[in-house]
């Protein structure tokens, strides 16, 4: 079970305290948290009986199993050494998330002409290697390509340019 191909380089010696595999411990705890959330979210669903299974039965059963696995993993993390928590990046996830949000908010209100470059530019900010001038040109080029392909060649109903009251392309 090599971690090499997954691109992460965990320090093999785990924590020195009671939690010997911090990554696994957090993983297990997260599972339990998810399970509890699911149980809360499905609280209002009817359970039904085995003969007429209600909508709540499978979600609840699954949530319980997830919780049990989470506890097992967390306990295992206390017993055996394992990788410790990696550093979580901020810039990457944040930029990508904002880029996607920007697309979602502008695609119908302003159109692809703006949404496309926004994604490319904000997304570009996620990487320290990005060069501004190059990315701007690229953003425009790729948006133009997409407009040509999706809107005109394939006739998809994607808003290209929306100026309220004036034009809707």
């Amino acid at each position, binding site marked *: *079970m*090599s971690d090499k*191909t997954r*691109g992460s380089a965990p320090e093999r010696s785990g924590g020195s305290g009671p939690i010997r595999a911090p*990554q696994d411990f*957090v993983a297990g705890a*997260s*599972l339990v948290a998810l399970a509890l959330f*699911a149980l809360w979210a499905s609280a209002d*669903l*009817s359970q039904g009986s*085995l*003969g*007429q*299974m209600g*909508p*709540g039965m*499978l*979600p609840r059963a*699954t*949530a319980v*199993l*997830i919780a049990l*696995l989470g506890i097992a*993993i967390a306990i*295992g993390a206390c017993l*055996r*050494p394992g990788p410790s*928590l*990696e550093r*979580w*990046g901020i810039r990457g*996830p944040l930029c*990508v998330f904002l*880029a*996607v949000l920007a*697309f*979602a*908010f502008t*695609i*119908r209100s302003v159109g692809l002409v703006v*949404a496309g470059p926004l*994604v490319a*530019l904000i*997304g*570009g900010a*996620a*990487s320290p*290697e*990005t*060069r501004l001038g190059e*990315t701007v040109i*690229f953003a425009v080029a*790729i948006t133009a390509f*997409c407009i040509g392909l*999706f809107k005109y060649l394939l*006739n*998809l*109903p*994607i808003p290209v340019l929306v100026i309220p009251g004036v034009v809707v392309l």
Partner: protein
Amino acid sequence: MGDLAANLSLGFSTALSVQNVGLAFIGCLVGTLIGVLPGVGPIATITMLLPITFGIDPVGALIMLAGIYYGAQYGGSTTAILVNIPGEATAVVATLDGHQMAKQGRAGAALGIAAIGSFFAGCVATLVIAALAAPLTRVALLFGPAEYFSLMVLGLVFAVVLARGSIPKALAMILVGILLSTVGTDLETGEERMTFGYGPLAEGVDFAVLAMGVFGFAEVLRNLEHTEAREVVKHAIGRVLPTLEDLKRSVWPIVRGSLLGGALGILPGNGAVLGPFASYTLEKKIAKDPRRFGQGAIEGVAGPESANNAGAQTSFIPLLTLGIPPNAVMALMVGAMTIHGIVPGPQVMTRNPTLFWGMIASMWIGNLMLLVINLPLVGVWVRFLKVPYRLMYPSILVFSCIGIYSVRNLPEDVVFTGVLALVGYALIKLGFEAAPLLLGFVLGRLMEENLRRALSIARGDLMTFVERPVSGVLLAVALVVLVLALLPAVRKSREEVFAD
């Protein structure tokens, strides 16, 4: 046998008209190009291109649509191998070893084997359909909800085998996938489950959104962090096509995959989705060195891709013989046929033999087209990987956003993908794998529906799953596979205490 020859020659004479060959070519080409776009799977592709077929005669239109279908399937596998984004459930398996191969500079070999394997599978499937269509449908009709449930349980066991790392974590991911699949409006009662009254979630989480977020975008985030791991991709691409060694290793996986995928594709109700997973499990289990799987074993691409294509073709059988579409794509085909004035039904074979046999012949031609189109394209894709990542990933983002938006025309879907990207990132950081999650998601819904349906029909008698012979056999097989899957893990955990 003479009958078969006569029918096939009727079919080929129809399919080999200049117009129809041209349509098959255009269909495959366009389908591949669109299917390659991240986030756009076969269903989205066909829906997009359906209006184009309106001006053409029915047989020609169907040939073109079928071409689009295979093309999109293959294009989806291409994206899965190149950038780890599965456009459809069947492409998830291609990411496991295919993308690893791409990272090792062997993208060409992976893509090439996928094309060759698909062609072989297509030939086998065409023969099967031509010779055995009618009797096979009768087999398909044996499968009721109880049998489907057991089949899905078997599939979920495959998901455990698929896991590369920790088994408990993989099990947890499968269960989370199942849990996610329950979000939405309950089919039987109409109650909304865990949607918090939020409109776009009423139909549940969309597969493309989940795959794109948890796989695709999360992969982008991971690559942004680990610049060293990325360098490998830009190394000498080496031989663009598979080596002789690759081909030798792939022969039997391709044969097995074709048969397995072809058999599963016949089952209405989307049995085809299990094909690639079953093939991967089989190859991993009988391989001399199973640890190669997950690190770029070519058998892990050859078998599943063949199964994929074989299943895609045999899934036409319920449509052509019964007139009942086995999955969403075939339902689109029915719509297309209806618009052209052909209502598919049990008598299409006898009343409209030109259509039936023409389609079968054109399936083979379509497969040939795919090979002809894609082998040269491998060179193009591989060169595409050489684009500096700082330019490639923004384009992945742009294409993916457009792709996701085009599925339901809902900006909320795009937002949701972004949220799932963060979730996917968290999963990577915590040592979870995404593939079992996706599998659990796809199978979970099918499994639950059939479970409740079977119990409803049996009025709550749990024994129905064991009493019905086919169902009982499937469950037994699932149990055996599960034990086989867990045994090495139990042994390994005892070693691990000393290793590392």
